[in-house]
């Protein structure tokens, strides 16, 4: 006999399944949903042995391999990024689930953030960022504002408080 029935039946023996229970959407779908519904994330930078965090408005490309944000050149984060382009960006949906911790989702994006020099690339990137955040049009256009492109290396997705999966957009 199957040893699976020790104590009580296992799922091999038709566990109660409810057809109505929503299926978990795919990981990529979840990541896409998060970065399209959440406008802001915390950008982590570091320099001189010191970690630093800043809230930024971002916009991702459709394939989720790149994201854009803007910062004035006089900022601490600009300084740090000029020294070291390795960053992390944390995006989460806390405001939607303030009292339901298990429903909170977060991603940590790792990669490199490089300033986009003036030219057609910058125009395209700035258009993308402004399309997502129309209120930032003049901010992004300002001469003292730098546009950065994040080249995404990986997404670490956290849900149910501790469940973590990794997605490498470059591998798919």
């Amino acid at each position: 006999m199957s040893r699976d029935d020790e104590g009580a039946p296992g799922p091999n023996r038709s566990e109660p399944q409810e057809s109505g229970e929503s299926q978990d959407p795919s990981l990529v779908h979840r990541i896409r949903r998060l970065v399209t519904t959440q406008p802001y994330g915390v950008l982590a930078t570091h320099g001189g042995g010191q970690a630093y965090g800043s809230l930024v408005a971002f916009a991702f490309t459709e394939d989720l391999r790149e994201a854009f944000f803007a910062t004035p050149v006089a900022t601490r984060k600009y300084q740090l990024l000029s020294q070291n382009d390795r960053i992390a960006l944390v995006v989460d949906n806390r405001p939607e689930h303030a009292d339901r911790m298990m429903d909170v989702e977060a991603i940590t994006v790792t990669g490199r953030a490089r300033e986009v020099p003036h030219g057609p690339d910058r125009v395209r990137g700035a258009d993308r960022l402004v399309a997502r955040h129309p209120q930032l049009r003049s901010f992004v256009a300002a001469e003292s504002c730098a546009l950065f492109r994040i080249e995404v290396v990986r997404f670490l997705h956290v849900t149910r408080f501790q469940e973590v999966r990794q997605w490498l957009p470059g591998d798919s």
Partner: protein
Amino acid sequence: MAAGGQLIVPLGEAGDAPEDLVGGKARGLGRLLAAGYQVPGGFCIATGAYERFIREAGLGDAIQLELGRKSFTEMRWEEIWDAALRIRLAFLRSPIPPELADPIRQAHAHLPSGPVAVRSSAPGEDGIRGTFAGLHESVTDVRDGRSLLNAVRVVWASLWSDAALLYRRELGLDVDRSRMAVIVQEFVEKPVSGVAFGRDPRSPEEDRQILEAVPGLCEDMVSGAVDPDRWTLERSSGKVLHWRPGQRGQGDPEPLLVPEDVASLHETVLSVETLLGYPPDIEWTGRGAELTLLQARPVTSPAKRDDERRWYLSLRPGSGRLSDLAERVAYELIPALEAEGKGFAADELRAMDDPELAEAILVRHEAHDRWKRIYREEFIPFAHGVRRFGQYYNDAVRPTDPYEFVRLLENQPMFASLRNDALAHLAEHVRREPSLAGWLERPEVVEGITRRDSWKMVAAELPGIPGGEAFRHAFEEFLDEHMNLTYQDEPLDDRPDLILNIVRQLATDGGEGLPPTRGGYAEGSGDDVQSREERFLTAVGPERREEALEVLQIGRLSWRLRDDDNILMGRLRNQLQHAVALAAQRLEGAGRLPSGGRVKSSAAETLAEALRNPDGGPVRLEEPGKMAVSGGSRGSAEMSEHREDPGITPRQLVGQPAARGLVTGKVRVIRSTEDFQAFRKDEILVCDAIQPTMTHLVPLASAIVERRGGMLIHGAIIARELGVPCVNGLPNVTDLLQDGELVTVDGHLGVVTVGPPEFDLERKGER
């Protein structure tokens, strides 16, 4: 009229109160009281009190944490039970704030002195669309204020009982919205009690009423402890169509109710139906002028028979049934199962001619089927003895650790621990004799031994080696005594190579040997079993000491036997498999069966038939020689995604912390006996479920990771006994993890972290 913020509603006023506030049951009782029926007096603790308690104790977060751990569809019944146990303990450990406790005490003080009953009354619970009787808890015979507050917490917590969680969809259970009112009533105990159905729940369209009666308390009938007398009446006329005496072991049965009682109940049911507007399901006690109604709710049809959840709920036998089961399982069934297995093992199958072998197969096959049935009907329900003790212990002691009760059950002589001790002795043999260790490493031993016959040939050299003869003897005894089990239709006593692999590794591990067979779950406290037991009995109190001792005793028996019964079942199956394998061998020799591959024991009858008909020609098996590899994977959305997209990998998996400890090591996924062979000391054993037939691997493992979840399942028990960290209840884990992968198993938090925290990808192209 009760107002929204009111915490206490007198039962006499509950009939007019909104259901949101007092629940359906209190409302029904209130209406009966107001209409002049005899109903025990009392009061209702309104839903607002539950809400305040939950809010102030922060219990909403605790419930969410329990229920959000993983997708509910992935949760096994045992995991649901575990979640309910932890929620109940969290409720019991949270104090009721004075602004709630004081009014409850005051209302209690206004009742006539004497014991009270505390019952659930959840809004929606008794709604006309569905009654799920027995999902929530009732506490009877509550005698003082302190017990009353405990009972109220138990009833509140039962909003999240295992049964309620199973039916959460029908109940619309939701942390933010679900609430529970509580009824506190005088506890009425009359010589006869029962239920009465306004219509036959099994066929409500027919002109029938059903009455049931038991001596004593109604609870005894509802819990199934006492079989009731049953009357079937014609609904329209009250005429008795049929009477069936309850099976209560008495001599010549006399009906518990006289015709006047039956007639008065019939009338009462009809008048209650007119009052409430639906055919009621009434609980009553006392007869004639003493007839008292305990509750009235709509009759509902019994759940569909194919609803597996009903079976899960039947796995919680009441105390009377558990005592009977304990007696029968321990003193009749287990000895009989052991004797039958031994009897089969003594048969000389090879000496039998074909018809004799056919007969032997059929006898074994029948025995195996019979024991499978007994296993399902009696062994599995008896396993509830452990769970019942756990809840009983937690209710009394209210420990910080919900599984502290396990310490009172552990360290009993189980087959699995005897086997591990024997394995340790074999390793010790080898460790003492370097020449024996050398022999074990020789190529003809490592490569040449596969089955029992090749072992016999190679082991013929052993008498010439110091300690060799003693080792040979002990090893063969080990195979016969401890490995007479079958894993995936393969008799393990015919795989000496698997055990040699383990002995070799245990013997060369630098002398530290096996971990001691000792509870790994118990943390810190050096108190012995005796003082723990005393602490438990003190918490229960002198009045219930006898009851507590019985619950503990049954818990211990249940703990020990739930492992032993598996091993004994394995032995029986092993004997069937040996006979089937021999039959297949003979039929192959006769050219009637294609050779190669293992034949499943499910082919027993076909093979026996073939042996009986020597001229029967080729034998056709449904799946000749094909062995299903168990993996337990069920391809969830995440899993299929994982396979499709190589870019997605798990980084941290969350399960149950089944045995404490923190270990990093390499994964070895066990899917077949070949993986047994490949297993190396200190690897992390990853499998669908640790089965009693593979526990011999556990001493080699540095940690265990299982798909199957539960704090009290076999793997968790063995892991704790051996002090090996264990995380279980991880969906699809045998597919998500791969051999050789580095993982960290955190048995404290129930988390498995995959891979080191590296940034190699981010650094690519640098330096």
